[in-house]
């Protein structure tokens, strides 16, 4: 067998080992199952409910009607099916959550590794930048950015990505510092390896497991952030998301009208998805904990 084939076999074996360890984390499995359901919903949304059901002009139900056979979760203030809205809202939440996380991870990992690796002025500057961003309260910053950039889905993704990277950066920096102290980094330097070689061949592979575990937790935060922004009316006004549903529910007086079917489903969905991601993230951390090597 060629060297490459054997390496791939080893990687597959490593993945198998990861899965069998992960399988033992019950909470993680529950989280994974819940996520699978939501992902399925998001992917099959167009099949379950046609996009027309989201149009206010095509609404067929009564206004704020309680759940009936035809509308399992009742209707909103325009007569649209709440169930259809919730299922379609899944798409926005998951999309924003994942996309914003990708941005946040990319920036955070890059800044974290660089600030840990480069000593002297460049490293300190990046470190201060991280600390500075970490200290700024998320919400005011997000609101300010959203106001300036305007509210579209893309902008929401950018806003969240740009404001949540410091957490990752700090984690990555700590791990980078610990890896940099190890003798094999010194060996890489003595062999003649430059900065790029050291960071990409040695630091990154050792930092990645931690980053991956942290990623799932970041998605949870990103989804919460999106919900918050939409709730405040800063989300994309043309897309239905759980946050915007909550916003509409409040602003149309659903509480005083006693329309629990409008408030509860989106709220519970947010809780469920965030919890699921957190459980999976925690389980991954347990499995990937470098101390257990």
């Amino acid at each position, binding site marked *: 067998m060629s060297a490459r084939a054997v390496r791939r076999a*080893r990687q597959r074996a490593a993945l198998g080992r990861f899965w069998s360890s992960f399988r033992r984390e019950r909470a993680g499995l529950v989280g994974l199952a819940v996520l699978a359901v939501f992902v399925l919903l998001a992917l099959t949304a167009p099949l379950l409910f046609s996009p027309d059901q989201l149009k206010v002009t095509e609404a067929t139900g009564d206004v704020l009607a309680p759940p009936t056979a035809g509308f399992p979760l009742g209707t909103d203030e325009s007569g649209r099916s709440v169930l259809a809205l919730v299922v379609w809202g899944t798409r926005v939440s998951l999309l924003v959550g994942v996309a914003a996380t990708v941005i946040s991870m990319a920036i955070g990992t890059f800044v974290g590794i660089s600030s840990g690796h480069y000593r002297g002025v460049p490293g300190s500057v990046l470190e201060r930048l991280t600390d500075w961003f970490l200290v700024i309260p998320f919400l005011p910053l997000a609101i300010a950015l959203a106001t300036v950039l305007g509210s579209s889905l893309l902008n929401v993704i950018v806003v969240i990505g740009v404001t949540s990277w410091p957490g990752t950066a700090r984690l990555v920096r700590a791990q980078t510092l610990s890896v940099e102290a190890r003798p094999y980094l010194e*060996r890489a330097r003595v*062999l003649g390896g430059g900065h790029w070689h050291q960071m990409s061949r040695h630091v990154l592979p050792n930092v990645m497991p931690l980053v991956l575990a942290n990623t799932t937790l970041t998605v949870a935060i990103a989804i919460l952030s999106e919900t918050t922004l939409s709730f405040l009316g800063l989300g994309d006004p043309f897309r239905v998301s759980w946050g915007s549903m909550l916003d509409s529910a409040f602003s149309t007086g659903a509480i005083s009208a006693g329309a629990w079917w409008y408030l509860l489903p989106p709220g519970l969905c947010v809780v469920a998805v965030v919890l699921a991601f957190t459980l999976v993230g925690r389980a991954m951390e347990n499995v990937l904990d470098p101390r257990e090597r």
Partner: protein
Amino acid sequence: MNSRPVLEAAGLSTSFRTRGGKVARAVDGVDLELAHGEIVALVGESGCGKTTLARTLLGLERPSGGQVLVGGVPLRYDGRALKAFRRRVQLVLQDPTGSLNPRHTVYEAVAEGLRVHGVAGDEQQRVVDALSRVGMRPAERYFLRYPHELSGGQRQRVVIAGALVLEPEVLVADEPVSSLDASVRGEILALLLQLRDELGLSVLVVTHDLGLAWNIADRIAVMYLGRIVESGPTEQVLSDPSHPYTRALLSVVPESHNMEPVVLAGEPPDPTRMPAGCRFHPRCPQLASGEAEAAGVADDCRTGSLPVLPASKEHAAACFLSMARHGMLTD
């Protein structure tokens, strides 16, 4: 073959600023030469500066004074010069387990140097050659192993192979066998000797173990507080030491049975506070016993300044008493 020493320290000094703001003169004026195909042992206790000296010779630390010369040419510290230098001088560290990235296979660990320098030619063949040279045969069997699947001795061999693959002229080995089992030491040391004999490799071994020096070193240099206090051919220095520190070290080594142990009191002092005069004088048994007084050099010991020991193959010691005895009083 170049008659200039392959690696040289000329008046080298390296200082550090400690947390308290004090300056630690880890290496305080050293002249050292390493010739082609020579094995030199740099011995001393912790804090004497031997590791700092080795790291400065490797270009990992910038000297605060003096120069590092490679084949007679001063080392420059810009990126390109350093990278070219790395092909000629390589390092083997103390802890073979820590020296290998646990996520890289043996093949990747050995090939790393080749990839960093973009060496042309058949990479696989070079890796096979390097692994075979360090005695790991058949080499292919080890390609896909990970460090945690190897024993301590095998890991150290892989590290050496990774250094050899660049075809260096000098190998600097920092405590190459101290974290290996006793029965495995001999093999690694024999390997170093073999590499010297077959490839003409020069080796600078940094160690606190005098027995190791006796085993494989042509010459030995004893360091104390940043200076070389005695150097010369191993047989001469270890059979008939001139410097009181060397004598004390030898006497307490359990492997030397024929000497009355002279256990020095106190701890090795602190490189941030150098004593005046000879830096060894506060602990010197010769000074304490009055021998120095009798020879008339006691004042020199306490206040005089000793010159840096020149790098030569002769047996010499930086000690006023020994110089007086050999009729070599210098200014």
